[in-house]
């Protein structure tokens, strides 16, 4: 992709952002994509989370997409795999005027960061469910959502200012 000089750049960004989001959601909802990409990816997230927990000596058992500890189990469903957060961030990066290289770098770094964050999130939630179940809801809904949102927005702002800035500045 090249670098654009739109007349109403803000509006165009929002339109592209929403369009990219729709495309991502439609594609991810397709049966074959869900079965052959999303589900295996979710299982990969489960395995990686279990590995993370075992590495800190937590007794973990994995059945399908369910991570079981002795007294608690967490089902890592489609919405729990960090894919939605990745898609939203990716849509924003794709909608933003930048070079192809900058976009690819942003997508890779942003997706990796979101996934690493999600692994820590899943692992911490299983640990909390096992040891301090009373804090599970608060940390799950309140703390980790805020962290993911802040992380995604921060990455986008950082990326758009540091990497997308140069081509735009050079062009203008």
């Amino acid at each position, binding site marked *: 992709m090249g670098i654009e000089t739109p007349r109403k750049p803000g509006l165009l960004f*929002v339109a592209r*952002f929403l369009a990219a989001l729709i495309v991502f959601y439609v594609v991810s909802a397709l049966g074959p994509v869900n079965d052959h990409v999303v589900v295996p990816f979710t299982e990969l997230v489960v395995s990686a989370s279990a590995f993370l927990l075992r590495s800190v000596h937590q007794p973990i058992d994995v059945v399908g997409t369910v991570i079981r500890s002795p007294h608690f189990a*967490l089902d890592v469903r489609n919405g*729990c795999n960090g894919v939605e957060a990745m898609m939203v961030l990716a849509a924003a990066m794709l909608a933003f005027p930048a070079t192809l290289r900058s976009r690819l770098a942003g997508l890779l770094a942003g997706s990796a960061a979101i996934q690493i964050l999600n692994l820590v999130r899943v692992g911490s*939630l299983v640990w909390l469910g096992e040891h301090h179940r009373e804090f599970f809801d608060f940390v799950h809904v309140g703390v980790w959502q805020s962290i*993911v949102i802040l992380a995604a927005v921060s990455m*986008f702002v950082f990326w*758009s200012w540091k990497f997308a800035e140069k081509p735009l*500045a050079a062009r*203008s």
Partner: protein
Amino acid sequence: MRSSVASLVVVTCCTGTSFAAVTIAGRFRMQRMQSFLVAAGLAAFLCGASPALGATAPTLVELKQFAILGSSTVTSAGIATIPNGDVGVSPGTSITGSFVLSPGFAQRTPLTGDAALLISAQNDASNASTNLLAQGPGTTILAQLGGTTRTPGVYSFTSTADIANNNTFTLDAGGDPNAVWIFLVGSAITANTGSNVVFLNGVGNPCNVFWRVVSDATLLGLNFPGTVIAGAGGAGSVTVGNGANLSGRAVSLTAAVTTSGTGQTIGGCSAAPGGGCPLITVNPATLPNGTIGTAYSQTITASGGAAPYTFAVSSGTLPPGLTLSAGGLLSGTPTTIGTFSFTITATDLIDCPGSRDYTIVIAAAGPAGGGPAGGPTLDSFGLAILLVLLAVAGVFAVNRFTS
């Protein structure tokens, strides 16, 4: 060895209990050896004084079908209810008074064509008496049983045994529904008016309690469990008082069995003639599934046999954390996820069994104790916030670079 040495001597007593004696020995080997011997001796002494020796129920054979078996006569002064068992006499031929029998049971005398059966039953009673005596003397205890508690085992009385008026004698099965008690009474036994013999926590089978009485047994109390064999050492009769409940059987080897007053209930430990068992049904048909970490409680019941019933897991495994009481309460807090199949068998008063297979699925607990917790990275609200923030940030950034 300059420092003190602790010698731990553990001796397993014949009753299955353990006694540990700890001695602190001195600096020298001889002192340690002496301490060891003292400790071992003390342990042996305490084991020897342990309250009970192992008791085994004798084989009753033909006697098993009788609730009352007299030698000379059997007499009911009023109306005696016999919930389960025959009423017989031999070699005497007289059964007088009113006995209310359960279907399938009968009054039997040598004149009713049951001579051979009755002779066998009397022989079995005599053999049972001999067997009980052979298991003794066990632990010798005081005559007065009122206010005391006895664990399963063999107990002897040098002379009489007595339960005072309105006193309670408790049999502590220690949770074992198959526990056996044998009491060897050197003379006569009297359970006085208002006295009561009970099982601690309701665990225990009256059919596993045996009283060998050398002379007379006079049972005037409210409840008295067991098979009473009187006249084991000479003339001895059994008298069951007004309104008394003898959960077992009354047998005299040499004299009469008599009910005084009225309203007695005698029996409950007798198999139907031929040894057949009724169909015992265990309920409920299915058990609800459980959740790990959440208290679980279900009551198992049985019907069709002679109450009370004793419940046990006869095969399979209960979910870890759950236990089944002898009374049929399945309870506890599951600790392990999985599917568990097991069979619960109910045994009635006369050892007739009935069983049912069960499967319980123990599910993982979510934060609210339901199924596995879901953990969406972002819920709808969080997703909306992220969308808005990214859109705003993007618009600002684009406008900044293009302005």
